[in-house]
């Protein structure tokens, strides 16, 4: 098994994650999950998501990974029973009380140990496996050698390969609690690690923000080591981000397995990933301890981009007109690029743009409006249109 696991902040993101090649998604319910700011799923939506995933032969994992206080247990039993009843494929847990409760209730729920448990060694894995955990999400600090030792236990291993990083060991930080009384381990992280810390001696502020994680360079190593699931971070990210990241990693994983992935391919995908995230990224802990190149100092250098121009709603084979739901400004003369799960990436220079009434316009100025564009090559619903920024031929 080589599973590509995507974040799904809501059903739309889940839909796009699967469409663009994810094998499984993870998301939280309204309670007991660590992304309180994401839309998350209510009970009916979890059921609908599970049924939808299973209809595609794919999987859903539900986060139940807060660290509970005594007052937080109300409703937990009913919630766990419900998740079991609707056959979610696994729950992601970090608090031993949840793990034990699943067993006490006699549920068949598979359990995956959250990265919040900061697991870095096979002996800790043994402890959790004896309690019924069948998969471990590794601490993001786990090195190549540490992963090998854990993999030797035979437990399923899930590893983050892309997305934002905590400065801290996950679960070992209450900076947010201290600064804002928002409990980081119950879904309220205020990301204090991305703030500036002032020194009393007038020296430059301390910053501790890590760059994002990307494992493009070492993905093949991890596949060869037998890592079972490759996880993308970002339940609060946009459909464009989710689709783009999944699109890139799907192609890289398949290319590695089929032995067709080249170094220029990897460079191209990495350029897309970095542009899409609007952040720099690095492999972080896999091959060495992160240094200055894996951190930001005095804020990020990049400026926000508006690459995501629109979503293809429809393509008329007869007229060769694409209907686009717009997101950002574009105009006649803009060079745009289309990509999709089954659409080979290509670019065109826009020479005509029509509004929804088929009147010619010189630019699309407002997001979430409908425009029509002549495109010679066939497109599919839910393909994306983005600004052409990266020239693959220059990388190749």
């Amino acid at each position, binding site marked *: 098994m080589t599973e590509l696991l995507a974040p799904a902040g809501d059903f739309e993101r889940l839909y796009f994650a699967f469409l663009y090649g994810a094998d499984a998604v993870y998301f939280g319910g309204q309670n007991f999950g660590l992304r309180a700011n994401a839309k998350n799923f209510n009970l009916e939506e979890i059921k609908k998501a599970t049924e939808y995933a299973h209809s595609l032969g794919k999987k859903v994992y539900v986060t139940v990974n807060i660290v509970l206080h005594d007052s937080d*247990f109300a409703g937990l039993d009913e919630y766990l029973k419900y998740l079991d009843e609707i056959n979610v494929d696994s729950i992601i847990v970090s608090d031993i*009380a949840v793990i034990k409760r699943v067993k006490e209730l006699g549920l068949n729920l598979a359990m995956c140990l959250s990265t919040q448990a900061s697991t870095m*060694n096979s002996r800790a894995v043994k*402890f959790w496996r004896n309690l019924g955990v069948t998969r471990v999400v590794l601490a993001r*600090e786990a090195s190549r050698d540490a992963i090998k030792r854990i993999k030797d236990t035979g437990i399923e291993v899930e590893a983050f390969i892309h997305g934002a990083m905590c400065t801290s060991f996950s679960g070992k930080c209450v900076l947010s609690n201290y600064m804002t009384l*928002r409990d980081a381990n119950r*879904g309220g992280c205020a990301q204090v690690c991305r703030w500036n810390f002032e020194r009393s001696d007038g020296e430059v502020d301390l910053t501790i923000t890590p760059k994002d994680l990307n494992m493009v360079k070492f993905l093949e190593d991890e596949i060869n080591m037998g890592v079972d699931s490759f996880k993308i971070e970002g339940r609060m990210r946009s459909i464009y981000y989710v689709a783009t990241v999944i699109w890139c990693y799907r192609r890289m994983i398949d290319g590695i397995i089929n032995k067709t992935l080249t170094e220029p391919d990897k460079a191209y995908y990495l350029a897309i990933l970095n542009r899409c995230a609007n952040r720099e990224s690095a492999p972080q802990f896999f091959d060495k301890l992160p240094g200055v190149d894996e*951190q930001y100092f005095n804020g990020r250098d990049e400026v926000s981009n508006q690459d995501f121009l629109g979503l293809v709603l429809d393509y008329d084979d007869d007229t060769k007109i694409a209907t686009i739901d717009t997101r950002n400004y574009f105009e006649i003369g803009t060079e745009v690029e289309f990509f999709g799960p089954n659409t080979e990436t290509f670019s065109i220079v826009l020479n005509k743009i029509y509004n929804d009434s088929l009147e010619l316009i010189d630019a699309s100025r407002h997001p979430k409006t409908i425009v029509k564009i002549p495109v010679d090559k066939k497109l599919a619903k839910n393909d994306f249109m983005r600004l052409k920024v990266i020239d693959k031929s220059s990388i190749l």
Partner: protein
Amino acid sequence: MKLVTVTSNTISDKLKNNEDIMLLYPLKSYTVGYPITFDIKDIDGFVLINRILDDFDLDELDTILHKKNNIKGIVFDDLGILDIISDLNITKILLINHYGNNTRSINYYLEYTDSVVVSSDITKEEIKEIVKNTIKPVVVNVFGMKDLMYSRRLLLANYAKYYNIPNKNVLDVKIKDNGFKIFENEYGTYFYASKYYNALNLLDLDNVLYFWYNPVFLDDEQILDVVINNDVSNIDNDSLFLDKATTYRIGD
């Protein structure tokens, strides 16, 4: 009984004959957040191991802990350690930092250990409720540096290198009125709240195996004041989360 983290050889000498005190020594190469650490051969009391470890660290630790020594107990964070101390006849205390927040979890962990450290991220009422309902006596933080974050990154070294400024492994910083004391060694960076956590009003709790004092960065006289006399008049202190509940979710 009091469990006191040893911060110097001199304070160890001053406290070691006190029958009401068990000394806790940060183990060299296996702790983060402690400027002074101790070789296993110099420890006569409990040993503290608060790093998150990989298998190679654990293999070495296994050897260290099984050499002849005078360790009477161990306070540890990484659950992998359970596997290597199962045959040791010492008191085993789990410090699963930031996770000892509810009674059920602590009781489950107590099936595998002699005691568990109750979190200091929760309110006084929550602590009291937990202590009242645990199946074995627990350990309660009553005074000391309150840890806020543990990073495997060498944040201070990276910062100094990037700006080409002197590398200090201890740094005081703040955001608005919230102060932090940071300590870094080769195993990671540890953030503390700048004011000492003061929960001395919990000293009357029953069902407590140890009341833990963690007086990092204090001088010997200050330590004696607080540990022997519970006098914190000369120490900048705060009740932190004891009287301030955190929110479950944004909007709560």
